[in-house]
């Protein structure tokens, strides 16, 4: 099966810019996929989106939509619609006219347009708002009109450029679910751009993490979260404890590390290519860390003594903050029950299971 979107070695440098916006990006996005481009601002994700839409042409490389090379095909000739960050609704048209726009451009008959507009308005729960002007709607309603306008002509691909960034948190959560539902119901390939890693994890089938115009890692949410390809991805997605360490010895893929910040030893199931005596950076997610028995033997492997300097209670869990001897900060997310009665000033022992440790070259 051909990919809905095939991007190969696409490069783009804007005139006058020092660094390329896209430094050779290759991606295949499957049909009916909810694909997210995730990265900090300036990583090139919006540029990539604009290239797919046809607003920009790549300096080099190729873009294929449904197997067809796009070249310089203008945006109006591509079966790709965009939901803009600012919504960009036509202020001089009613909600219904906004939604009907793409259908009229396709020259559909009047009756078909009317029926389709009604259908889209029902799908997006906009019934009864057809005669309103965009400026008479709330932010959430405008967002849904923008979605409806882009969906009405049933494009093969829908591009969403940080469409939820202007909404407040509650509305945002609702729209995340709504978008998932719409994507499942319409079967359209969604390419979603965001800098919010949580949003990306919640919504996507697959995520491409971007940085400095390059794709750092592509994978499913669990893969990206559990096995980040490098330190940048590890730090960008979710919360990460990063601990400098040195490899003491190894047995097969398994390695034993001594933390630079304390004398604790930590075992990692996969030590990668690090050789004995070489420095490494260990990454552990806060929720993978457990609280050990208070009187464990000090030389136990995978046990780190930590002086607690802050506790943050958030109902379902307790975040424990502390620092190692060299100032390396550690966080452990404990379930309320497991936290026991740890208090600020206590020294606690944290257990780091070998399968939770990821090893990177510093």
């Amino acid at each position: 099966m051909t990919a809905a979107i095939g991007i190969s070695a696409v490069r783009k440098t804007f005139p006058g810019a020092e660094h390329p916006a896209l430094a050779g990006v290759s991606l295949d996005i499957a049909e009916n996929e909810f694909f997210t481009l995730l990265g900090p601002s300036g990583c090139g994700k919006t540029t990539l989106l604009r290239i797919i839409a046809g607003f920009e042409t790549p300096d080099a490389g190729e873009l294929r939509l449904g197997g067809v090379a796009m070249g310089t095909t203008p945006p109006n000739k591509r079966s790709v619609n965009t939901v803009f960050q600012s919504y960009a609704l036509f202020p001089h048209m009613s909600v219904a006219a906004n939604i009907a726009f793409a259908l009229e451009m396709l020259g559909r008959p009047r009756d078909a347009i009317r029926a389709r507009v009604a259908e889209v308005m029902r799908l997006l729960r906009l019934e009864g708002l057809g005669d309103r002007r965009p400026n008479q709607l709330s932010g959430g309603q405008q967002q849904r009109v923008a979605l409806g306008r882009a969906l009405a002509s049933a494009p093969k691909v829908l591009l969403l450029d940080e469409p939820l960034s202007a909404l407040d948190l509650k509305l945002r959560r609702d729209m995340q679910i709504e978008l998932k539902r719409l994507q499942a119901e319409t079967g359209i390939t969604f390419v979603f751009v965001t800098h919010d890693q949580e949003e990306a994890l919640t919504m996507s089938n697959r995520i491409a993490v971007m940085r400095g115009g390059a794709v750092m890692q592509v994978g499913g949410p669990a893969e990206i979260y559990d096995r980040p390809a490098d330190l940048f991805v590890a730090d960008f997605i979710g919360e990460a404890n990063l601990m400098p360490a040195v490899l003491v010895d190894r047995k097969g893929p398994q390695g034993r590390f001594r933390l630079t910040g304390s004398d604790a030893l930590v075992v990692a199931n996969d030590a990668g290519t690090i050789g004995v005596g070489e420095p490494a950076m260990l990454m552990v997610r806060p929720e993978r860390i457990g609280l050990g028995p208070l009187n464990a033997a000090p030389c136990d492997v995978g046990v780190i003594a930590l002086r607690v300097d802050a506790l943050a209670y958030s109902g379902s869990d307790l975040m424990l903050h502390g620092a190692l001897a060299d100032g390396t900060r550690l966080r452990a997310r404990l379930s309320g029950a497991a936290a026991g009665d740890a208090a600020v000033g206590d020294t606690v022992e944290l257990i780091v299971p070998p399968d939770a440790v990821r090893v990177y070259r510093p």
Partner: protein
Amino acid sequence: MIGQRTHKIVQTAPTMVFLAVFMIAPLVLMAYVSVLERGAFGGVAWGKLTGVAYEKLLMEHDLLGNLVFNGDYISIFARSFELAAITSALTLAVGLPTALYMTTLAPRRATMMLFLVTLPFWTNLLVRNFAWILILRNGGQLDRFLQGTGLTRGPLDILYTPVATGIGLTYSFLPFMILPVYVALQRIDPRLIEAAFDLGADRLRVLTRVVIPLAAPGIAAGVVLVFVPCLGAYVSPELLGGGKSLMIGNLIEAQFGASRNWPFGAALALVLVGVLLLSLALLSRLQRRTRRTP
């Protein structure tokens, strides 16, 4: 609250006084003059009221002394409206593409273009119209160019015709169209244009469905700014039209000059003001209605 009200009165007083002295008062005076009898040697006979001036707009006394209908003045009005409408359409036809082009320029070049558009204002209107005489006359630059390239044979013969008047008026009023349209176009969010392209509109439909509707207030302002002064235009019809086909402006001027019929001149001017106000009211009403319907 009283303080705020006094504040308002004090703030608007200069404008109010200015309007009262230089606009309301002359209008009232003109209305009064228009219902007076004309003086024997020009001017008016103060205090002698009559409706003769208004009667003259539609009627005349024939040789036998009977009052009969006379459409001459109506046709002058009609001709003036026609010319003003044509001029508005021509300035729009030239001004809209110019303004569209200007919005595509880099800011510095756009500023330069704006300066060039306003450049003619630095020269007196009379001088500029004289310049057009030199260009349009037989044997003038345009004539020689057209004959030289073989596009026309024989003299051009457009000077002192309505065509020359139209060219002169279009030229004179073009900046008044370009400026408001340019401002309106500049205020359009470029993302709306991108959105229209994205949704499948080609260039023409982006223009007709998004750009022009969004620039409509600017276009309406431009049309009013051209149409209204054009109706009363005096210099171009006189110089380029040769004063042969009378326009309202020339007709009114003649009443206060050669014809020495002040009441009739005042009546003409008042009717012109009335018709203009009426059409402006109609226009704004039409605009409000199109804004309401999708």
